[in-house]
């Protein structure tokens, strides 16, 4: 236990050199086979994306004729897809929905996680178990009740919830996953900090904002990323609560466009790329955070 390697750490050099000594440094069949398998996996994972890019740059005859590569790249496809599918609207909708959700989730989950990690109160274990039990609930169970709740709230309140931002954001502003993730991190922060903060006269809220949060940039980033992906990807719920394009997020927008575009595969693929690209760009910049966030929490958002 003492010398446990951290997850995903590279193996020690000793093992590698022993291997090399036994098997010879270069022409090792095992090594070649390993790379062959790994490369095949990588190709399978990545080829659909290249194919998407390729089709998105074709003209109509090439796209429907089954060509592999466009003869002359049609960059105009992107413009046309963007216009035809009113992606600018969906894009902005998704950005707005994501921002509202992420801000709400960060505030509410941080507060709750702090309470679970650092404060003592009656019923703590019970409330935490209750919280974790929501992870078991399949989304399908919540569709009907939440739809009714949301439309009820919209009809008694000042603003409608259906076809509007509240239905798309407020139900996702707190979740067991976010609270759990942050609580795990908050618990690791040494308690000496709290003691000295108390001596300096800081209360819980000030300690949370001034000390805990600056130390917790990594999990907060991870949580924000998951919330972002989650709201960018959400489909079932937006279909239920948006009947007009006004607040339709991008995944649903793309799905609607796929049906409208019919056999115009080049436009469909251009639309797909427009949807996929932001996520992939963010992923490539933050992939370390992402993968480690998933590996340590072992849950998805």
């Amino acid at each position, binding site marked *: *236990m003492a010398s*446990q390697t*951290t*997850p*995903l750490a590279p*193996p020690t050099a000793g093992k590698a050199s022993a291997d090399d000594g036994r098997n010879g440094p270069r022409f090792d069949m095992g090594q070649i086979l*390993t790379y062959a*398998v*790994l490369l095949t*996996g990588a190709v399978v*994972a*990545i080829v*659909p994306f290249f*194919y998407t890019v390729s*089709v998105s740059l074709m003209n109509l005859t090439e796209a*429907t*004729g*089954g060509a592999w590569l466009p003869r002359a790249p049609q960059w105009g496809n992107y413009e046309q897809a963007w216009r035809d599918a009113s992606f600018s609207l969906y894009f902005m909708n998704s950005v707005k929905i994501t921002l509202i959700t992420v801000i709400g989730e960060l505030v509410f*989950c941080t507060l709750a996680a702090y309470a679970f990690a650092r*404060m003592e*109160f*009656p019923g703590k274990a019970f*409330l935490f178990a209750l919280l974790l039990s*929501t992870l*078991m*609930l*399949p989304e*399908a*169970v*919540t*569709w009907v*009740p939440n739809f*009714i*709740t949301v439309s009820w709230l919209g*009809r*008694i*309140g*000042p603003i409608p919830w259906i076809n509007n931002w509240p239905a798309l954001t*407020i139900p996702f502003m707190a*979740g067991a996953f976010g609270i759990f993730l942050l609580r*795990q991190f908050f618990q*690791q922060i040494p*308690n000496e900090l709290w003691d000295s903060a108390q001596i300096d006269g800081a209360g819980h809220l000030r300690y949370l904002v001034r000390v805990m949060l600056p130390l917790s940039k990594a999990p907060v980033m991870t949580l924000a990323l998951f919330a972002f992906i989650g709201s960018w*990807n959400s*489909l*079932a719920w937006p279909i239920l609560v948006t009947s007009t394009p006004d607040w339709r997020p*991008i*995944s649903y927008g*793309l799905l609607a466009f*796929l049906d409208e575009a019919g056999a115009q595969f080049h436009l469909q693929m251009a639309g*797909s790329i427009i*949807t996929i690209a932001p*996520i*992939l760009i963010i992923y490539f910049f933050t992939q370390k955070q*992402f*993968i480690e966030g*998933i*590996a340590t929490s*072992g849950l*998805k958002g």
Partner: protein
Amino acid sequence: MSTTAVGKQVRTVTPARSNIFAGRQGRKLREALLAYLFLFPAFLIIGLFGLFPLLFAAYQSTLVGLNRIVGRYDGLNNYVRAIDNLTYVLFFWLAALLVFMALRSIMQARRTAQEKQWAFWIWAPSGAIIGAGFILFVLFIFRALPAVLEVPQLMRARGGPQASFQQLLAQALAAPPIQQALWGALLFIVAGIALHWYIARRRSPRDRLHNATGVFTGAAVMLLSAAYLLWLTWTEIQRAYSEALEAGEGLDIWSQIITISAGFLLLFVAWQLWDSASHRQSNAGTALRLGAAAALLASAWFLIGELPRAIAAGDDTWWYGLLATLYYSMGTIPIQLGVALLLATLLFQDIWGKSVFRIIYFVPYIAPFVGTAAVFRIIFSSRPSAPVNAFLRSVGADPLAWLNEPAGIFQLMLGDALTLPAWAAGPSLALVVIIIYGTWSFVGFNTVIFLAGLGSIPRELYEAASIDGGGRWAQFRHITLPLLSPTIYFLTLYSVIGTFKAFNHIYVLRTAAALGTTDTASVVIFQTFKRDTRYGYASALAILLLLIILALTAVNNRLASKRVFYG
């Protein structure tokens, strides 16, 4: 693992220190109140959109009516529509399970209390009263829901501004049955807590700290729910019989309940016998195995004879949805986990470009699935010029309809030679494409988790094994697999639940031409709700799905407690 150890160490320091403070009670109270304030927004949202839906769905599942939020009360008929007479068996055993769980929790707590010499039974009355209060509160919610849900209509009818809302809500809640349930619930809960407090004051601090009121509250809630379920099942069976009598038909619900229950019990007995046989000497083991086989045969005879008849009038769409879910689960999980394990073990060596591979494998999981599913729609399109069909043509095979193909794959392999019944035809080719998509997009996720699991295996074990002359395969078989078993277990459970919940990509990849053969349970529920606006029926199906997921989790837990090695 090491992090929790640190957390525990740190936490033991605090209470000792804060004990010295003079105004301890006041401080504790202030801290608790602040904690509840911190929790309030999150629990408001989670409670309303994550916990309450379960109650609401249970309530809604007893109503019937198209596109109507508050439908007509219809008992268990929504369930009967879905799974026919199996409903009664299910609800009876659900009640039995609740009773069993309640008794078991009491027995376990009693054993601990006896060992440690804590007071135990003295907490029973307060727990039972609080539990009854909770049940009354649930009753209040069920009674208040229809009235509260009607409020917006009344508001619109009155045409007044927001101010009328509070008035109308108060009016709706003023009905005597609702008020009785509410005040009864509050009375019981307050009385129970007061009793608990009264008893606790007279006991030693040690007993107070280890009080069993919570255990009894939980047990009371379970027992009362079980009683309600039994009553509901009983009245529903009576109703079904009287309706059948009016229609001049016979019913055999009781005989079906008994036969099917006997079948499942025998199945359980067979499993227990087989399980205990594996720990015995050869002779006794053989005898036990023979007994298990006999029990299995008998249960199969009961179940095969009775089940199809008991569910004959059920909803075919729903049953096919479950079958499709099962196909999807069975088709994607083994391959997904196998490939991920292979890739992770290969990656977990001194490999050039390790992090690059990891990044690439993860891309299909992270990319928005509507986008990637759209690509699969084109790759596996039924056009002869689509990539996969072009490949088939180049090797001389006929193009296939892929996502538009409703026929089962076994049927397709057989051709026209023989027509298989629906249950034997296997997943439709369209569903197979969805399985391929699911595998493609989730392998990366599993690989990353496996890599983390591999990282926590001590390297010394491998060094020791290679000194002892263990080859790579032996190392994998005897070190990696056993030590990785918690990860494998977690991923299996996670994938099983995930496949049963799966909706998004299946919904994107479904085509009209596939004739609903790709509709898994979630998709069926969604369509029932969105397209057919059958709120009550969709809720009943969702509750059934939840029960299936819970059962799968329980089975998985039991299997894992025997097979998983938590080093």
